[in-house]
Structures are given as structure tokens and as C-alpha cells.
């Protein structure tokens, strides 16, 4: 017991450095990981699918996909995993850490870009580096998927209007025969810079400073 504990602590210490979580949080998350995986070492999509609370979430599929997306592992790979281990799980979670009082302006910028990149990867399902009209339409459709028929009708119109807005803001003067292929990451950043992602996209208990709460069931 003692030996394995020190061994796991040693392993966790690496993760602390890599992901920036505190040891306590990593232990908590590890517990949760074991719960989800049924005491295995890896999680598959089915494990995440079976979380009952997620059933009512309209973008459930995208969220689960994001865990298995190689692009979110910050290693410049593309494609997706079949199963993920604890380290990959943590890497994805680390995108949701909030900034602290000590975070400098540049670090905030980096954090914001990371979070926006995460969102971008969620939308860009074919990994070609742009969000095309069809992909964006899918996003809006999924968001409105719980609202029945009205949702689907309006989803197209909304997605079109949104794309139009991105195009008009970023490339104001287009000739009629030019085409706006898709939203690139720079345009995506530009359009969402008002939202201050680094302060909004976070889970409170992943803040290193607050007292960590234990993961429930």
C-alpha cells in the first residue's frame, strides 16, 4: 500500500508539473477517473456516454469527442484516440482552469488562446483548420436539438447569419465572386474577443487556490 502510494504520488508529481494542477486536485480527479472507467486504466467513449447527468446535454457528443481529440493534448497531433488514459484526461481538464491573481497579462493571453483553441477544435470536426458553413450549421443545430422542429428551421438561418457576421467583421470587402471558405482560428479569436474567455471558461473547483471539493458520484 505504502509503496504503491508513493509510486502513484511520484507519477502525480510529473502531472503536477505538466498540467499545473495541485496534487490534491489530481488525486481527486484520479478518484473520479477510476469511477468513470470502472477501475480500468483507460476510459472509452462508452464510459463517458453512460454518465446519466450528461443525457440531457444537447452538445453531449461534442464534449465527449473533445476528450478523445488528439488536438487537445497540446502535442500538435491530429486524429482521435480510441481510449484515453489519466494523463490525457487531465490534459483536457487543464483547459478549464481559471486564471489567478498572479497570472500576468501575457499568461492571460496565452490562456485565452488555449481556451479558444479548445472551442475551435470542438467545432472544426474535420480538422482542416477552418470552420465551414456546414460545420457551423451543425453546431447550431446541436444547440437547438432539444427544441424540436422549430429549432432545426431556425438553426440554418442563425448559422447563416452568424457566418455572415464573421465574414463581414473580418473581411469587410469581398468581391461578389470571392468566397469565404470558412472561419479560421484568427477570425474566431477576433469574433469572440469580447467574451473574455479566460474568465468565463472555467470550472470553479479546478482553481488551485480554492479548497478542492471532492468529486461526487
Amino acid at each position, binding site marked *: 500500500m505504502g509503496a504503491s502510494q508513493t509510486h502513484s504520488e511520484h507519477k502525480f508529481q510529473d502531472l503536477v508539473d505538466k498540467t499545473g494542477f495541485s496534487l490534491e486536485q489530481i488525486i481527486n480527479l484520479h478518484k*473520479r477517473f477510476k469511477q468513470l472507467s470502472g477501475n480500468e486504466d483507460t476510459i472509452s467513449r462508452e464510459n463517458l456516454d453512460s*454518465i446519466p*447527468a*450528461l443525457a440531457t*446535454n*444537447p*452538445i*453531449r457528443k461534442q*464534449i465527449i469527442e473533445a*476528450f478523445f481529440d488528439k488536438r487537445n493534448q497540446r502535442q500538435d497531433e491530429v486524429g482521435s484516440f480510441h481510449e484515453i488514459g489519466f494523463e490525457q484526461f487531465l490534459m483536457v*481538464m487543464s483547459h*478549464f482552469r*481559471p*486564471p489567478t*491573481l498572479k497570472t500576468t497579462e501575457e499568461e492571460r493571453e496565452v490562456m485565452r488562446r488555449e481556451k479558444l483553441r479548445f*472551442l475551435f477544435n470542438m467545432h472544426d470536426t474535420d480538422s482542416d483548420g477552418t470552420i*465551414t*458553413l456546414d460545420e457551423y450549421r451543425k*453546431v*447550431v443545430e446541436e*444547440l*437547438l436539438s*432539444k*427544441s424540436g422542429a*422549430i*429549432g432545426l428551421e*431556425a438553426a440554418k438561418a*442563425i448559422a*447563416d*447569419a452568424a457566418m*455572415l*457576421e*464573421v*465574414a*463581414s467583421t473580418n*473581411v*469587410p*470587402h*469581398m*468581391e*461578389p*465572386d*470571392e*468566397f*469565404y*471558405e470558412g472561419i479560421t482560428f484568427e477570425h474566431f479569436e477576433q*469574433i*469572440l474577443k469580447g*467574451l473574455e474567455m479566460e474568465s*468565463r*471558461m*472555467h*470550472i*470553479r*473547483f479546478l*482553481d488551485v487556490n480554492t479548497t478542492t*471539493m471532492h*468529486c*461526487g*458520484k
Partner: protein
Amino acid sequence: MPSRTGSHRPASFGSSLPERALLLVLVLVFLQGSVLPLGAASSPDVSHQDKTDNHKVEAQGHNYTKKAFPVLSIDYHYIQTPFEISLWVLLASLMKLGFHLIPRLSSIVPESCLLIVVGLLVGGLIKLAGEQVPPVMNTRLFFLCLLPPIILDAGYFLPIRPFMENLGTILMFAVVGTLWNAFFIGGLLYAVCQIQPDNPSSLHQIELLPCLLFGSIISAVDPVAVLAVFEEIHINELLHILVFGESLLNDAVTVVLYHLFEEYSGIGTVSVLDGFLGVISFLVVALGGVLVGAIYGILAAFTSRFTSHTRVIEPLFVFVYSYMAYLSAEMFHLSGIMALIACGAVMRPYVEANISHKSHTTIKYFLKMWSSVSETLIFIFLGVATVDGPHNWNWTFVTVTVILCLVARVIGVVGLTYVINKFRIVKLTTKDQFIVAYGGLRGAIAFSLGFLLDPAHFAMREMFLTAIITVIFFTVFVQGMTIKPLVELLAVKKKQEAKRSINEEIHTQFLDHLLTGIEDICGHYGHHHWKDKLNRFNKKYVKKCLIAGERSKEPQLIAFYHKMEMKQAIELVESGGGVKLPAAMPSTVSMQNIQPKKPPPALPPERALPQLSKGREEEIRKILRSNLQRTRQRLRSYNRHTLVADPYEDGLNDFLIKKQKIIELEKKITEMNNYLTVPSAPPDSPTITRARLASDPQAYSVKPTSDSVPTIQVDLASPQSPDSVNLMDEFRNARQPEQDEDRGLMMKPPSEAKGPKRPEDAEGAKDQQRLMRCLSDPGPSADEDEDEPFLP
């Protein structure tokens, strides 16, 4: 919070106008000052005279002394009270007008200061005239008539999201901050009063409890003053909601403290039990107020569900229910302000989904108007009451009060922020703290509470009042005037004027779901989880009860999108009938640029058809649908009880489609002037131009029976032109791919030129005639568009 100041007249009016305005202002002030005492003085005489006349007539019985029939007589007494009220309101409004005519004044001095000065002037004039100053700062008048409109305006338009996100911080400032202020000021004042043992002054008579009472009155940040000043400095949303939220929520604390100390200052001591009861009382007051407000809010929302046939009185429900919430809360000595805020905030999402656009505008403008007038009157009355009120100036007391107020506020804010920042994600910087501390203005509520004090129990009431007025003047004048330059100096973040874009809305919703999902994966029931649960509960049960008809199922994103479209449509129309491009879309990007480049279709080479992109199809489909709908609409009868035959009333769809048509029209016009509509079209031929013109929605009328057959006619000039025909063909194919019954009115493309051409030619001829008639006579469609009141 949108500004309630009047519009700024252009400076091009000439330099004589400001002087004239100033003169006008002075004349009015003088008039006001003179009429009121005149009214007060003359009315008893006049009425007395009338009575004696009557008596005389009656007493004389049959011996009438024949007087001349009074052609013109003055009976001021009859109309006195409403007349004076109206005069005051008129004065207030004219003052507001006047200030904005004087160009530089309103940018240096905030309105509240100017209004107090005007009040001082009027009060001074009345006093000079030797008359009794009317007791305008009547506490009942203030709390029951002047305060509710301002609070309702604030509550109804409270930005819920930032308020809820910062609720913890706001509550900390409101509750703990006010308590700290009250005890600090009260306690230290008592200590100061007890100093100078060798030189006993009147201050020694002041007990501890009256001091604490005074502390609690003076410590509350006043929403009226805060609103008046903060509106003009356009500070960023976070700071605005912090200070403003604090000023609203500290009402509960003030009410409890005030009653507590007032009750017990006669007795002289407060036991621990009383303190404990005080805490309980606070909870009851605060939560009770919110509960009362919420109940009335739900009632209002429920009522608005059934108002679809009586749109005219919709705003009335909003106002009356809110006012009753306030009065009911006041009846139980609960916090009326919190009731009003809760009522407005609870009812707003449901009421707005139910009421018409016009009622929404009415509510908005009535609230702004009433709150504006109220605010103006409050400041003027403050000035008048200052001149009037019995004063007892005591240098020590007053100066110590002012200093203590400032010190207490600064210490309170700094201390609390230190604690709060441990729990906040977006921390409050020093600059923020400074603005929060500096923005703690006192106002008329403090004065009214002081006025309420019973002179029998409180001998030093006048001294208190003097001190309160001094503090109010100090905060409003000094702090109010200097906060704007300080904000500039410190480069505090200003309010972002950017309007909410659809992308931001989509991603806000997306983020909400994402974060809820991540919380669920972590198994952590954080506040996203609960917020999501609340939203689902709201959608499933509450919305069904409170929102009429189809709108109850409308998800928030779609509602937002429709609202945005409405706004754009209105902008479009207001910018000159829709012919010019609206300023909101300065780019030349249109939907066709967005369509991904399709690979060239693998078609037989002889079919050189213009390709219709999918977006174009959609638009065309919509035009077709809209025309059918318009016909149905024209047939509805006009009812006197609906204000105008308003197409907006029924269904958002009509409006949207209309707007789309406008955009279509203007797009077409610009396109026609510039370039091809269709990406890979053949070179522009006159036939194509005319074909497009023919598909112009205004140029043809709709046959109601032509449901199965598309009604777009072929162009006149050369019906055999393959290009134009194929365009129509595409329409037809796009619209009803499954319709095999496409013989109807269309020409066949030459590539399929088999089959009977004869009957089609005949039909074609008929169509041509119809088309000629269409093209020459624009038809009722054009008129209808002109008649309809586009501006809501």
C-alpha cells in the same frame, strides 16, 4: 443602463440660444417661486369670498341685490393641489430641457447638482417672498410616489446575468458593508460627542442609540444618486452593477437597523435578544420583500398571457402589479425596494415574450419618463427642503460626520474586497475598489428617513437633518462632479458599446452547456449544474404556464435571433426606406459569398445554365412563401379594437419575411447596379436583368389559388430566351421537386423541347398578358407596403 438625459441640441443653434435659455430658466424659476405662495395666500381669501357671497344671496332670500352675472371668476382653490403638482412637474421638466440647451454646463456639472441648485433657488425665492415654503419633502410623498418609478425602472431593466454572477460580492457590500458603516460612524460619533468633558456642550446629551440610528441612516448608499451620477460616466458594466446593486440591496439592512434603533432609543438599551431578533428581522425583511415581489411578478406574467386581444392595456398591468408589490411590501414593513426589484426581474422574461412590440416600447418609455421626472423632482425638493428645514448647525458634529463617512466607506470597501477577492475569479483591482468607494453617494432616502424621526423622541433631530443634508451635498456635489475626471484620469475601463452579436450569443450558450457537461463529467455539482437545472425547470414547467402560445417553446437562442433581426429591420427601415444599405452592414459581403465553392457540376456541356446557390434558393423560397402569406393577410378585416391593422401583432414570421424582402429588394437593386447575382452565370444579358426584375416581389401580384404552381412569371421581352426560362425552371425545380404538375405556366427549356408546345404557348400568352398587367400596375402590394406603419 441607457441614459435618461434629454437629447443634446446641436450647437449650431447659435450662441444667443444658450443665453436665451438661461434667461428662460431664470424667469421660470421666478415664476414658480411667485405663483406658489400666491396660490397659498390667495386661495383662502377667494374661497372665503365665495362663501360670503353665497351666504349673502341665501340670507337675503327674496330680496336680491342684483349683481352683475359673473362672466369671469377665479376659483383657484378648486384646482389648487393638482395645479401645484403639475407646476412642479413642469418646472422639473423645463429645467431638464434648459440644462441641455446650455452646451458646456451639462458636461462639467452633473444634472443632480444643477437640480439641487434650482431647488435652492426656488426655495430661496419663496422664502424671500415671505411665504411658507410648501412642505414638499413629505416623507409619504417621497416613499410612495417619487421613489417607486425610479426603482421599478432600475429593476425592470436590471441586467440579470451580471447581477447574478456578482451576487455574492454585491450582497457582501450591501449587508456587511452597510452594517460596518453604521456601527463605525455611530460608534465613533458617540465617542467624539463625549469628548470635551471640560466644555459641556449640547452634544453630550446625545445617547449612544440615537448616534447609531444616525449612523444607520447616513450609511446607506442611495440608488437615486448613484444612478444619476453613474449614468453620465458610462463606466464598465462590472463596477456599475456592483455599486448599483449594493445601493438597491442595502435597503433591507437600512430598514431593519432604522426600526431597531428607533424602537429602542426611547428605552435606551438594546439587549442581546433584541440584536438576535434584529438579525431574524433582517432575514424576514429581505426574503419577505423578494417573495412578495416574486409573487406579484408571476401574477403579472400570468396575466400577460391572456392579453393578446387587448394589447392597449398591457403596459398597465406591468405598472400596477409592480406598484402593488411595493405597497404590499411596505404594508408589512418589508423592504419595498427589494420587492419592486424582484417583481420587475421575475416578470420581465415572461412578459416580454407575451406582449406586443408596441407595448414593450410603451413600457420602456413610460418607465424612463416617470423615473426621469421623479429623479428631477427629488433633487429639486432636496434643494427646497434645505432652504426650508429648521437647521441646527454644529461645526463639530457635521465635520466629523462627513469625515467619518468617507473614512468608513474606504476602510469598508478595502477590507471587504480583500476578503471577497479570495472567492472571485475576476478579481477587483485597486482602481475598481477606488471607484466603488468613491461612488458611495448618499441621497434623498437618507434625508427622508431623517425627516421621519419623531421630534418628541429626538431633540437633536434638526442637527441630524443638517448633518445629513451636508453629507448629501458633499457627496453629490464634490464626489459627483469629480468622479468623471477621475475616471478619465485613472483610465478605468468604460462601458463597451459593442452590441451583442449572434456569435457571442451562440458561444455563450455553447459555453454554458460545455461547462455543465464538464462539471457532470467531474461529478462536481457546481453552480453551472444548478443553473442548468433551473433553466430546464423553467423551460419545462414555468414557461408553459406563463407564456402564451407558441412562444413558450422558443429556445433562447432563437428568441435572441428574432430580436436581433427585428432591430436590424427597424434600423433598415429607419435609414430611409430600405433602399440604402444600412450602416450596420457596411461590408459588401452577402450570403452568396459564404456558400462554399461548389465544384463545377458535371453536366452535359450544352446545358449552360446559371447555377443557383442554395442560399439563393432559400431566399427565393421565402419570397414565394411570403407573397402567399401576404395575400391571406390582406383578407383579414380591420377591427376597431386593434389599434391599426398591424401585421406585427400576429406572428413574428410576417415581419421577418417582410424584412427579408426589403433586404432582398435592396440587395437586388445594388446587385443590378454592380454585378451578377449568380456566381457562375453567363454574361449579363438584358433578358437576365429583366428576369430578375420580374422576380422582384413588388412587381407582381399573387394569385391565391396558385398554391401548386409557382407564380413568378417569365419576363416580358423574350419569353423564349433560354436563360430566363431556365432561371424560372430552376425556381420551379427548387421549390417543388416532387411536383410533376409543372405544365402550368412555364415555358419549357429548349433542351426539353418536346411535347405539346401549343397549349403552353397559349397559356404563355395569357401569362404574358397577366404579366403585362402586373408590370404596369404595381398592384396593391406596393400600396400596402407604403401604408403599413413600419415604425413601431
